[in-house]
């Protein structure tokens, strides 16, 4: 199949949805055929929106999603993985400069990686409360938080370590390898803070890193910790393809 020189239907839909890429916008400006296709697509979608059945569909949706009476729900990670909360947020940023990296160090300058990608600054991982943008705790249970990474434009893998040394992959949720970072460094989905101390590690790379191998490495390293895991005692060996890493520690706020 020969690649089309014109915008795909997905690109057209994204353009009509208000999230066109700059490249797509520029292409439409100079391509008469794509402008015509965009107009035709707009007419098609407008016609659908004008169908009586569309209004009925909207009413059906609103009825189906009407919230039930308030119920008490357990706090949990919306990604279905882990409990998180913070009394204080302590961020360690380290560059994986060798086996185990330098988890207790200060911020380190970014690097140039493979694939022509460049680091934008220091490797960083932070947890930000979405309600007010606060990046330091304590965060009460139930607070919605967002993971943010910085310093790298390609990919990241975020692991979590609980007080008992249990390691989990928390981003990408359910992923088998590191995920691509969006330009703003915000990792979806957001999470709900729940009780339980947690240490978060983000491993940055330009190529996919095996999530399960990294998780196992973190769990193995954490077995060497005498007490509560810290970056210093639980740092896993450098992973294949790893270009840098950053740590963040979270503690649960006392809900009382």
């Amino acid at each position, binding site marked *: *199949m020969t690649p089309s020189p014109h915008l795909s239907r997905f690109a057209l839909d994204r353009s*009509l949805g208000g999230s066109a890429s700059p490249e797509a916008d520029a292409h439409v400006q100079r391509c008469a055929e794509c402008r015509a296709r965009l107009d035709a697509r707009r007419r098609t979608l407008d016609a659908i*929106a004008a169908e009586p059945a569309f209004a009925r569909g909207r009413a059906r*949706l609103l009825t189906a*999603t*009407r919230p039930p009476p308030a119920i008490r729900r357990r706090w949990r990670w919306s990604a279905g993985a882990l409990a998180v909360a913070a009394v204080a947020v302590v961020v360690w940023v380290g560059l994986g400069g060798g086996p185990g990296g330098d988890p207790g160090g200060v911020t380190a300058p970014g690097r140039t990686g493979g694939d022509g990608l460049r680091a934008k600054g220091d490797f960083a991982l932070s947890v930000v409360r979405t309600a007010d943008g606060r990046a330091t705790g304590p965060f009460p249970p139930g607070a919605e938080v967002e993971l943010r990474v910085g310093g790298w434009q390609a990919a990241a893998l975020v692991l979590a370590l609980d007080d008992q040394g249990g390691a989990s992959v928390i981003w990408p949720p359910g992923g088998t390898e590191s995920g*691509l970072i*969006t330009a703003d460094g915000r990792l979806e989905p957001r999470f*709900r803070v729940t009780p339980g101390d947690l240490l978060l590690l983000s491993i940055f790379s330009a190529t*996919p890193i095996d999530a399960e191998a990294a998780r196992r490495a973190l769990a193995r390293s954490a077995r060497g910790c005498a007490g509560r895991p810290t970056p210093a005692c639980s740092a896993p060996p450098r992973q294949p393809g790893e270009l840098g890493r950053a740590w963040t520690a979270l503690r649960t706020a006392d809900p009382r």
Partner: protein
Amino acid sequence: MTLSSDELTELYTRYGPIALARARRLLGDEALAWDITHDVFVRLSARRAPTRQPVRYLYRAITHACIDAWRRAEVRRPVELDADLAGPDPFAATLARDVLRAVWHELDETDQQIVVLRFVDGLPQSEIAEILGVWRRTVGRRLKRIEGRARALAEEGP
């Protein structure tokens, strides 16, 4: 529910036609297309955090739901190459369609999504990777494997 009624109304009004058009096109079944669009928006409304890329989310979710419908045999319509993707060589297009049909049931969910996005929608690998949230090279690797299997079947003949 994360979204308020007003937010959901706005989301559905803006993106519902895109979702419905896609479901109609993939399924060729009007009633099922409405049901699938409804279900996808119900799930979207239940997300704790609204997606920042609704079109990308809807492409993935609608594709997934349509494949699920095919699997449950609610729709007998086979996977078809889009007419405007048939290109100048109808024989090649027919061959590709028949062979892809033959390997369809051997594919896992991700491969099936890739096949739909590549051969039904005609999307480039970069957009497929973006929609599915995987690496472009992962898409390329899987496509190569699928096409290799399809080619082997074609060489085996009927």
